[in-house]
């Protein structure tokens, strides 16, 4: 629709065919008339106000959406109003161009409804519990049907209540503690929480929650996923490993002790002795593998126990070197300890940390260059901790370095099985977890020129 109004009295001067069609009136009926002759007063007021704004400010005014009463019912227009000037630069006319957006608006509306419908269905048919909370006070504003299936509370019982008032939900949110944390961070994830449902069942759940805006209001969405079955499986797995380890270790200890007795009798010839020593070696390898697997399982199920003590770090390093010495000598390697004066105690679990040190030393011996004799273990005094480095002359392939940086399980270099067939690829994983559990960190550098150095840190004792 295009129309022109007189700038002084805002009466219609021109009106096009599209306007006739839109409003359902002949154009000649408009000439010399104003908006008040055709539209309800409040509509006409609005049109006139926009006309004046256009003419007074001498610039285009755009009205993105305005309702207008026509003989065909209410239509919605997108209108632009432009002043037209006389030769003195004064507005003489007002040009109006209106696009009928009623159909487009209906379509958008329909689309919006169908999207809402889709998300509503997603919400209602989800096989996990979803709650929507008011960000301000934790009031439940919506809950999906699965909440009732799982926790036993219908939407009617929940909506309008605060999340803390519902026992199993309060189990999750821990008396506002986690709610406040979530409010602040805008995101929360807990991989294993326990609660008791309205039916009195104990369940393990994964809890994922995030904050977002609906309009200008902050809401919290909480997804609660039942992981009870997975939890029971994990427990069973861990129990199985514990039993399996016992079952494996029993025959391993028999072999170990019987071999030791046999060798000690001393009535064997050299060839027999050497064969028995091969058996000892092979048996120790199995023992180490079982220990590694057990360690990984303990770490993975979060059951690694840390018994921190006051520890003389120099003694710990000496002992670790001592226990690797025989093995290192066999491989024609020498381990050199470099330590500063006046070493203070550290605070760590000595059993776990010496295991970590022995792992690094064993790797250093195994993967050092054939011609190079020396392995160096250095204690560096830093303000809060000691940094211990283990260096050898071998280097790690670039691609393997990337893998090691992730400290995954079973990472081994392409040439590693050729050098050291007995490795399980678990050592570094265990080492990293153990050091981190003691509050330290671990990293490494490796190049063909400088060899490989692994670094780890152990926190100094606060005592003394």
């Amino acid at each position, binding site marked *: 629709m295009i129309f022109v109004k007189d700038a002084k009295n805002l009466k219609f001067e021109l009106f096009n065919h599209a306007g006739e069609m839109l409003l359902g009136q002949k154009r000649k009926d408009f000439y010399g008339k104003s908006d008040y002759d055709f539209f309800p007063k409040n509509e006409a007021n609005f049109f006139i106000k926009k006309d004046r704004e256009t003419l007074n400010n001498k610039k285009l005014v755009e009205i993105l959406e305005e309702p207008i009463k026509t003989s065909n019912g209410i239509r919605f227009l997108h209108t632009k109003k432009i002043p037209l000037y006389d030769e003195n630069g004064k507005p003489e006319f007002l040009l109006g161009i209106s696009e009928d957006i009623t159909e487009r608006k209906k379509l958008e509306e329909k689309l919006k409804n169908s999207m809402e419908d889709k998300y509503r269905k997603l919400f209602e048919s989800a096989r996990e519990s979803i709650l929507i909370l008011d960000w301000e006070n934790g009031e439940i504003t919506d809950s999906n049907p699965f909440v009732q299936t799982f926790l036993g509370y219908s939407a009617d019982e929940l909506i309008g209540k605060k999340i803390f008032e519902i026992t199993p939900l309060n189990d999750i949110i821990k008396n506002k503690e986690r709610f406040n944390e979530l409010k602040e961070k805008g995101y929360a994830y807990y991989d294993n929480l326990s609660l008791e449902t309205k039916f009195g069942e104990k369940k393990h759940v994964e809890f994922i929650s995030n904050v977002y805006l609906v309009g200008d209001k902050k809401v919290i969405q909480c997804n609660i996923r039942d992981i009870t079955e997975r939890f029971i499986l994990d427990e069973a797995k861990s129990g199985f490993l514990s039993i399996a*380890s016992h079952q494996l270790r029993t025959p391993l*200890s*028999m072999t*170990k*002790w*019987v071999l*030791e*007795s046999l060798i000690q009798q001393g009535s064997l010839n050299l060839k027999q002795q050497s064969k028995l020593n091969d058996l000892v070696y092979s048996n120790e390898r199995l023992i180490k593998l079982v220990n590694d697997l057990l360690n990984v399982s303990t770490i993975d199920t979060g059951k690694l126990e840390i018994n921190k003590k006051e520890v003389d770090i120099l003694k710990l390093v000496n002992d670790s070197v001592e226990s690797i010495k025989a093995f290192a000598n066999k491989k024609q390697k020498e381990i050199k300890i470099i330590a500063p004066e006046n070493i203070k105690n550290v605070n760590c679990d000595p059993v776990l940390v010496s295991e970590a040190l022995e792992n690094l030393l064993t790797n250093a011996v195994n993967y050092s260059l054939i011609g190079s004799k020396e392995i160096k273990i250095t204690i560096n005094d830093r303000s809060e901790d000691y940094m211990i480095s283990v260096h050898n002359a071998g280097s790690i392939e670039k691609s393997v370095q990337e893998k090691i940086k992730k400290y995954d399980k079973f990472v081994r270099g392409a040439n590693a099985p050729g050098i050291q067939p007995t490795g399980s690829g678990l050592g570094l994983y265990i080492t990293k977890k153990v050091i981190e559990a003691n509050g330290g960190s671990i990293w490494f550098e490796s190049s063909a020129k400088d060899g490989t150095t692994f670094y780890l840190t152990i926190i100094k004792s606060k005592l003394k």
Partner: protein
Amino acid sequence: MNKTNKKILILVVEDEKILIRTLEERLAAEGFEVTKAYDGDQGLQLALIEHPDLILLDILMPNVDGLEMLKKLREDAWGKYAPVIILTNVKDTETMAKGMGIGMDGLNNTYEYMVKTDWSLDAIIGRIRERLNI
């Protein structure tokens, strides 16, 4: 614990025949007198009758297991402070023991844990001698 005229008596409680035989041979070779039990029930009876100088105790055994036996032993006036070395292959033994309320008694140091696969016979003998101050 210094029994000059008498041989030192060690009670081995262990259900695995090969392990008990190997231990017995070695202990005897070292000059100890050995008495043995194949489960916790027998072990407890023998301990309370013979009052051994040291008990080597396995954990996973039929009938009465090692921790159960230890718990009952500690209820006895003599058994309360009897030196015990737990020789086990079970992970988490210490946790389990604490769960049963029989944690390591720091004052008397009346028992300790050794994982069998981690200890050679030589090392076990060494540890026994240390414990008995001989």
